[in-house]
Structure formats: structure tokens, C-alpha cells
């Protein structure tokens, strides 16, 4: 797409070991968090498919069932994991990536 004189410097960025570390770290966190939410949800579905009664059992002396904190917990987990990722990426990842890009002469790409 926007090919140009940047190509040399882009290759230099790609060859920088700091770049490899940063990208690998973010990918690892991204896949780990994806796996957590994926298996949490699939586990929830399997529980519904195979053991409806368990989710219907009361938590305490009242009528509130185990399914309520589990279901609401899944909603909160989705929000919390999203927050964890954004906090990591916006605080740590971006700053290091920006420093690396400046070193390679991409000041214009850094806000």
C-alpha cells in the first residue's frame, strides 16, 4: 500500500530485538486472555448442557442460585479482562513501542 522510502527503516524495526520481544509479549498476553474468556464461556455452556441442576442449586438459605453469580461473573470477567489488556497495552506496550520507533526515525508515527 503506502510503499516508499520507509522500507529500509521498517526492515530495521523488524530486525530490532526489542521489537521482537515487545510483539511476542503482547501476542502472548493476547492469546492467554483470549483462551481464558473462550474456555470460561465454553465451560459455562457445557455446564448448562450437562448439569443444569448444579446451576439451579441455591447459594445459601435463600432462592439465589449458583447460576446467578456464575452468569453475572462471566459478564464481569469479560469487562475485567478487557480492562487488564487495555491497561497493559496503553501504559506499558505503547510507551516502549514509541521509544523504539523514535530510535528508528519514525517520530511522525508517535503522538
Amino acid at each position, binding site marked *: *500500500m*503506502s510503499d516508499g522510502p*520507509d*522500507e529500509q527503516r*521498517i526492515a530495521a*524495526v*523488524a530486525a530490532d530485538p526489542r*521489537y521482537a520481544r515487545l*510483539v511476542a509479549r*503482547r501476542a502472548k*498476553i*493476547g*492469546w492467554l*486472555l*483470549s483462551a481464558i*474468556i*473462550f474456555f*470460561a*464461556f*465454553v465451560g*459455562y*455452556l*457445557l455446564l*448448562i*448442557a*450437562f448439569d*443444569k*441442576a448444579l*446451576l*439451579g442449586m*441455591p447459594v445459601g438459605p*435463600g*432462592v*439465589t*442460585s449458583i*447460576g*446467578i453469580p456464575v*452468569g*453475572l461473573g*462471566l*459478564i*464481569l470477567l*469479560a*469487562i475485567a*479482562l*478487557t*480492562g487488564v*489488556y*487495555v491497561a497493559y*497495552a*496503553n501504559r506499558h506496550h*505503547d510507551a516502549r*513501542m514509541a521509544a523504539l*520507533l523514535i530510535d528508528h526515525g*519514525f517520530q511522525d*508515527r508517535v*503522538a
Partner: protein
Amino acid sequence: MKAWLAALATASIMLLPLPAFAAALEGEAQRQPVNWVAILMFVAFVGLTLWITKAAAARTRTASDFYTAGGGISGFQNGLAMAGDYMSAASFLGISAQIFNDGYDGLIYSTGFLVGWPILLFLMAERLRNLGRFTFADVASYRFAQPPVRSFAAVSTLLVVSFYLIAQMVGAGQLIKLLFGLPYAVAVVIVGALMMLYVLFGGMRATTWVQIIKAVLLLGGASFMALMVLAQMGFSLEALFARAVEVKRQAALSGGATMAEAAERGRSIMAPGNFIKDPVSAISFGLALMLGTAGLPHILMRFFTVPDAKEARKSVLWATGWIGYFYILTFIIGFGAIVLVGTEPSYLDGEGALRGGGNMAAIHLAHAIGGNAFLGFISAVAFATILAVVAGLTLSAASAVSHDLYATVFKHGRAGSADELRVSRLTTLALGALAVLLGLVFEKQNVAFMVSLAFALAASGNFPVLILSLLWSGCTTRGAAWGGTIGLLTAFVLTLLSPAVWTATFDLGPAPFPYSSAAIFSVPAGFLSIWLISLLDRSPRAAVDKAGYPAQRVRAETGIGAFAASDH
């Protein structure tokens, strides 16, 4: 029983139709007396949004303005707009109605709709923003030969949007007839005409602001309802649930059940019911919801309205937060309706069903809480919600035609911005007219399967193409275009053969494909086809595609060369 079924059918139009919900859209929604408060509130909303559209029109000069609001939307604003795209009138009325009837099952829907968002963030959000400009096809075709991959993406977008749009238009007509007492055809034409005005003149800027205003109104209204319900229960969820269980028990008793049966029926609302029958359907349904979210063109398009990857991430955090909060509110509202609406004879017909149809649970609750004025407010918000959702859908389809098909495939990237803009607007007009027409044609048809089809198509075509083109260096033009098409076709054919369509819609007897969702087969079919076709691809173009991966990867990871906030 009949009113209950009709209501459920209406509720399920914009939700995922599952076996229990696959009941035909038989018996249209009952027309209500004209509600003047609702109409006045709605007119106020329309006036405000048209004024915004006028302001946006003055600033919509280039293709970038039209498609992405010049890229100047903040993460917070975009998060609200994304949440607005997702919080349809049906997720408000439909999920609360489902909870009103069956209790716990409504929560399963809600979680399914939410879990796609984190995955969209972790695997795709930044890369989408860094590589894309106007449509998700920009990203999917980044290093590939443009015509085949763009054509696939455009066709896929048009299919997904069309099915989604038909379901919304038919749902809109029924709902507005229900809430405002307007005739079906009038309602569909009003929705079509207003949606065209927003998109045509205000482009993405107006569409985004309409969506933001609606999201704020909906969240505000739902918060107030949930708060009032909780206040009556001394802010105790346990008290709310206990009252709801007791209401259901009493209802079963007066229906002639024995004490034991009635107690069982009461407690059943605290546990999963018939919502999910077999494990295969359960997982398949979950996959379609989860991965389909990350392949919906009108959602993906919103990533290009923010200035950079950082704001793109914030968008998803806000969107996930608002949507999750909204589903928790809906849960409280549904249980509140059991207690406050289900026990009040003036909201029920002779047989104990809701007046106006089961979709009305939240609407009657609004009346129970805040009288006619609040009822009017909530009705107007529901109308505004439909309007905002169809505007977003139309804009994304118009972009696929003008940016992907016209400018890139037919003009080989040599179309001017003004030229492209003209084609977008013509497409918007055509799509608006088509949406109204289809809305009228499908009035009495069962369209319940169409949203689930849209999600299955997005999960089986768009999602695998995006993921593999972004993350796998070996992916080639042929693999993406043909593999994606195979994923789409598999989802399409299996959905046609599934009980919701084969049996419930066309009445052709037992369905050849027994599960409620195609995704468990069609998503792997998409991934495997792309992988296999790419692997076997020995064409010269395949070498170019693979050689382009390292440069694409660096740009995707760093944002080097990303399209800036505004290109004029």
C-alpha cells in the same frame, strides 16, 4: 398461549432464534392505541438527530468524512457508538421478555453476546486500526491481489448486512405498530426514510452521533428502571428473586398445578431451562455469537473512526463495559417485570398473558414505574434504537459497494474521493429503498432465522479470513478469497437445512441438519479451506502474498504508515 408465542416470535427477530424461539412469526403484533407522549418524545429525538445531521453534513466533504467521520471520534465516543450498534431494541425488549417468561435463560443470551468483544480486542482491534482505512476489506486484502479478496469481502458484507437489515426492518414495523399504534407500512417507511437522511447527508459523523445519543438514552432509561425495581426490593437481589419465584409459584398454583409442581415451576426460573438442549448446539451457538461479533462489518467499520490503536483499544473497553452493564440492567428489569407486571391484572389479558404481546414486559414495567410519561420515553427510545442500528448497517453496506467494489475492483483504485462519495450516496438510496421494500415483502414471513444467519456468516467467512490474513504468513489471495467463500457457503447451506429454517420457516418436515447453529461446522470449514487452498497454492501471486507478510506485520504491530486522523 397464542399471544405469548407471537410475542416471543417478535422478540426473537433480532435475537438469535434458538429452537425454543424458532416458532414462526405467526400472528402479528397487536396494534396499540396511539401513544401521544411516545410520539412527542420521538419527534423530539428526530428533531435533535436531524439537526445533528445538518451540522455533520456541512463537514462531510470527502470519502474519509463519509466513511469514518474523518477519523476524529474518541475512544469513549466510539465505545458508546459500538455499544449502541449492539444494544438493539430486541436485546432490551427481547431479553427482558425472555427473563419475564423463563427467568435465568435470558442471562445465557447476554453472556454469549458479550464474550466476543474481549476476543475482538485481544486478537484484532489494534491491527484493524493500523492497517485499515474505511472497511474491513482494507485489512483483509492488505497484501493480497485486490479484486478477488475485495469482492469476497463486499459480497460477504452485503449478505451479512442484508439479513440483519431485513430482520431489523420487520422487527421495527412490528414493534412500532405495537408501541405507537402506527400501521406497519407507515412504520417501515418512516424508519427507511429517516435512516436514509442520516446516512446520506451526515455519513459516519451523523450515524455515530445518532448512535451515541440513543445509547445514552437507552442506558439512562434502563438504569432508572433497574434502580426503581431494586428500590422497591430494599436493594436486595435475593428479595427480588424470592418475590419472582413466589409470583411464578402462585401463577402455577392458580393454573391448576399441585403444590409440588408449583414449587418446582417457581424455582425453575433460577436455573437454565430448555434454552440449550444438546451440547453440540450449545457450543455451536456459542461459537457463532462469540466469533460472529468479531466479523460483523458494521462493528469492524467503527475501528476506523478513531485516530489510532490506543483509542481503538479504549473503544472496546468502553463498549464491553456499557454492554455488560446493560445486560445486568436487563436481567434486573426482567425479574422486576415478573414481580411488578406479572401480578398486575391491568397489564394482562384474560388468559394471564401480557397485553400487546410478551415483548411488552419492559414496556409495561416502564408504565408501572413511571406512568404514561416514562412509558412514552421508553417507547421513543426503542424506536430511536431501531433507527440508529439500521443507519449503521446501511452505512457499512454502502461502503462495501462504493469503496470495495466500485473504487477498488472496478476503478482499480483510481476513483476520486468525490466520485467514490457519489457512489456511496447512490448506494445508500438504493439500499434504503430496498430495505423498505424487503421490510414490506417480509411483513408476514418468519424472519427469525436471519440474525442467526448473519452471525453464522460473519463467524465463518469474515472472521477466518481476517484472522489468517493478519496472523498467518502462509495465507494467499486464493486461499482467502476461496476459503472465505467456502466458509460462507457452508454456513449458508447448513442454516437453510437447520430446524429453524427447514422445519419452522418452510415447513419441509424434519430438518436434515439437526443442530440449531451451523457455526461448529462452518467456522472450521472456513479456517481449513483457507489453510488448505493457501498451502496448495503454487501460483506466482502466492509468492508475492507470502513475501508481503513481514512488512504487513510490522505495520500492523506498530502503526507505521497507518492512515492518519484526517486526510484533508
